């Protein structure tokens, strides 16, 4: 799907999203929930970047901060040449048609008192200047595109099933011919047999309209299907960002490895394999560990991991990992150097924690 040197459509640099904690009688600022803490990535035109991670890792916050549904605490988000994070309100409003969002819960993201035509047509009223006739024609076009029967235009959201509601949400996102769509867990609320329908629709639309997606999901198998590259997040930071096949064949970051190992494969032979079982829970983003965010649960953590935070760096062509195991420039620390090269990825699959 990728051309030789595709244009970068979305460029995120050091994005930070902190939610302040106020406590005590005087509601003093007592700290921050660092939901997103320095995230950087690019998305090329026409590409799908998968963003995976467990609940609370900040993946949805990234999606929302990207479209400035939150005011980012820091960093830049350049979409199609303009920095969304600092755009003035009126300029931002004019920019909105290029970037849209499909939400997780199709039940909650549609106004129950609006008809389907009103829901899909609302962005056209806000941002367009179509005559009512042209607008209705556009609404019908959109309904055709997402596979909704035109006869349903006057119905209300509660009359539709979950899969159909998600189609309405997609039609609304498409109304203004966006270039970039953030899909925030678009299939999480749907049944297995319906999920495939929605994913196929998203892929068809991408092919036909040249859309660029950020596909946020916790479903690693579905992300493998839809994404070109995948970013794995843990506690507000990207642990690994790799091309899809490379990541699934040979995850480099210990968290990415554990996460993939935890997925239940629908195959009794594979599902009963020896798995990496992580101990404990994800720490609170209000009190992240001092060193690497994953150091508290990492089966391969060593001294340096508890002291400093690893930065995301390219360790193989196209593969970015934030882990000291792959830090070839390691010179710091009393026992620093030797640990890193010892753990060659091939050897490292065999020394699973529970054996």
């Amino acid at each position: 799907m990728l051309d030789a040197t595709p244009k970068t459509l979305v460029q995120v640099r050091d994005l930070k999203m902190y939610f302040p904690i106020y406590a005590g009688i005087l509601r003093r600022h007592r700290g921050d929930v660092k939901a997103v803490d320095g995230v950087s990535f690019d998305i090329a035109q026409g590409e799908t970047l998968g963003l995976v991670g467990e609940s609370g890792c900040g993946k949805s916050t990234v999606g929302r901060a990207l479209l400035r549904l939150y005011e980012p605490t820091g960093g830049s988000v350049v979409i199609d040449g303009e920095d969304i994070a600092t755009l003035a309100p009126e300029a931002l409003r004019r920019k909105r048609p290029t970037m849209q969002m499909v939400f997780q819960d199709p039940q909650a993201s549609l106004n129950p008192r609006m008809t389907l035509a009103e829901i899909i047509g609302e962005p056209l009223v806000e941002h367009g200047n179509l005559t009512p006739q042209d607008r209705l024609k556009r609404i019908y076009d959109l309904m055709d595109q997402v596979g909704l029967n035109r006869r349903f235009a006057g119905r209300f959201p509660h009359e539709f099933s979950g899969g159909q509601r998600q189609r309405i949400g997609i039609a609304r996102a498409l109304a203004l011919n966006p270039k970039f769509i953030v899909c925030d867990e678009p299939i999480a609320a749907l049944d297995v047999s319906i999920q495939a329908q929605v994913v196929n629709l998203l892929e068809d639309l991408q092919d036909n309209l040249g859309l660029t997606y950020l596909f946020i999901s916790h479903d690693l198998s579905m992300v493998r299907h839809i994404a070109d590259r995948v970013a794995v997040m843990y506690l507000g930071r990207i642990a690994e960002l790799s091309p899809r096949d490379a990541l699934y064949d040979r995850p480099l970051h210990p968290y990415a490895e554990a996460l993939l190992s935890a997925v239940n494969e629908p195959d009794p032979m594979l599902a009963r394999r020896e798995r990496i079982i992580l101990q404990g829970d994800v720490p609170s983003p209000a009190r992240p560990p001092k060193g690497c965010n994953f150091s508290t649960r990492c089966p391969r953590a060593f001294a340096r991991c508890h002291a400093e935070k690893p930065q995301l760096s390219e360790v193989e062509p196209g593969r970015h990992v934030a882990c000291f195991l792959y830090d070839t420039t390691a010179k710091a620390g009393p026992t620093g150097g030797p640990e890193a090269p010892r753990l060659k990825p091939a050897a490292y699959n065999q020394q699973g924690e529970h054996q």
Partner: protein
Amino acid sequence: MPDGGDLVLDVKGLKTVFRTRGGEVHAVNSVSFHLGRGELLGVVGESGSGKSVTMMSLIGLLPSPPAENRGGQVLLGGRDLLKITDEELRAVRGAKVGFIFQDPMTSLNPVFTVGDQIMEPLIRHMGLTRAQARVRAAELLELVGISDAATRIDNYPHQFSGGMRQRVMIAIALSCDPDVLIADEPTTALDVTIQAQILELVKELRQKLGMAIIWITHDLGVIAGIADRVMVMYGGQVVEQAPVRDLFANPQHPYTRALLKTIPSLHGKRAARLQVIEGQPPIMTAAPTACAFRDRCAQRMDRCDHENPQRRPVGAGHDVACHWSAGGVDA
């Protein structure tokens, strides 16, 4: 892994109907299955397929009205649970049958300590004193892998994470050493790495305690990992039942086949396009007189429109309710 010989639970022709303002909904339509001692039976199906309702109606957990039992037998230790009084049923629940619910956030009472909630069934069903129950509760917490059980026992549910709350739920369900444990989507609300922890725990507990488990889920991956035998439900009926390896290697019902194909894999070849099952699951407003899956089925025949297929054996411990899979042969 036992196979049929020594049955703990035997359900025959269970029918449950909900009476709503919009008419009747036939949620459970002549469901029959059995559970061997120490066996783990996986129940798969999409939302609305009747999997949870079947298990809840077994032990009378559905409010009536609107739920109404329309026949069948539920034999547990030689007694028909549908025939006994509410008082007797209450003694069965908790003591003989443990239940783990899907959402660990809402199924614990927020105003009681975790210890109190584990002790309640011990005092009620096992006749333990408070002091004895407290000791046992701490043991149970330790059993489900909560470290520092002696102090955590006085914590409230909000002080526990989702995975730990589900461990507490498991401890409560196990407290009276039940013969049957019914787990309704116990890992669905949890993250994958926490889910893996809980699955590992259940595998361990099975080996230690040897109770039979019914595991309800829509996740075929989970089923593949833990079940001995699988039952696939659709439209309030069992459409296929087989030993786990057999089901995944050799699915017979078109619905099972389609379901297995719609799930993308983590390994193996990546399909250019996902297989889909067109259409929506049915809402059963009447007892089925035709195959419930026919509208979405690629193998639909004339016969599917006017005859509801019955389950027929197609292999060892493997049966399927489909005119097409049975090759049109009459039973």
